[in-house]
């Protein structure tokens, strides 16, 4: 399957989704007014990928900011990953947050408690 590679913009994150390596990355800012449009192809890609996933899927989320419009879409991404894990594949989720950014750490914990895949919380020190 084709991979996704999107450059970040002031309102949307850098995205890399590679079916050959099973690595999914979302980095930067996610603050578009309408997030559904931006995330739809990503969720569809995961849907397709979930039919034949790699043994290990590694997900790196490193967001500086995200708005509540994105938060639901990000949950949709996680729900697709949850389905991949339920089908007995390994899914590793790395949630990066800036040193002392309690809000971002808590946001990761919120998702973790909803989707029930353990997150690896990684504090990024400058």
């Amino acid at each position: 399957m084709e991979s996704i590679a999107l450059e970040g913009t002031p309102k949307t994150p850098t995205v890399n989704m590679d079916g050959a390596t099973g690595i999914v990355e979302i980095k930067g800012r996610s603050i578009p007014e309408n997030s559904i449009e931006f995330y739809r192809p990503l969720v569809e890609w995961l849907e397709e990928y979930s039919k034949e996933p790699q043994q290990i899927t590694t997900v790196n989320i490193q967001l500086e900011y995200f708005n509540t419009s994105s938060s639901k879409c990000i949950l949709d991404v996680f729900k697709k990953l949850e389905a991949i894990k339920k089908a007995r594949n390994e899914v590793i989720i790395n949630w990066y947050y800036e040193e002392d950014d309690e809000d971002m750490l808590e946001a990761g914990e919120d998702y973790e408690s909803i989707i029930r895949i353990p997150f690896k919380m990684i504090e990024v020190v400058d």
Partner: protein
Amino acid sequence: MSFNIDERYSKMNQGEVLLAYKGSITAELITNVLGVVESKLDHVIDRSITKKKIYNILVESLQNLYHHVDDLPYMVNESMDIHFGIFVISKMDESYVIRTGNFIRNDKIKKLTERLDKIKSLTRDELKELYKFVLNNQKFSDKGGGGLGLIDIARRTGGGVDYEFDNYDNDYSFFSFKITIEN
């Protein structure tokens, strides 16, 4: 008593004003404002976490404004910009204050008041649970969803939100929203 938009605007311009705006609220405007405020914050605040918090809340409050402005009928006020709204970002003592204002149809006031009063009454943990519940259970539209923006703002500020409504005419009122971010 009649509501005067200019009086309201000058009342909102309190403290050390970083940016104040009155006019059409468009997506492009918000993008520009966020850029300007971000570089301004870089100059006035050293702590990256405080900067982030203010920026996050600003994104949420301006996008809320963008999505929820009600337009007055043209007959009522033909001089008013379309999608009219106000916002002011200022520093008062050690806190940062974001104020937004927009017209709202009177029939929406009851629901919004109930929602805001509920959010204001909740503890930090209750806000967290409500946020997760709405995130996981509510259907979202292109506009966002279920008041998640307001919950998020209350969470990040520890309930530091306030509001008032000024009656404009039989159909409309002006909604003023104030967010206080302790430094």
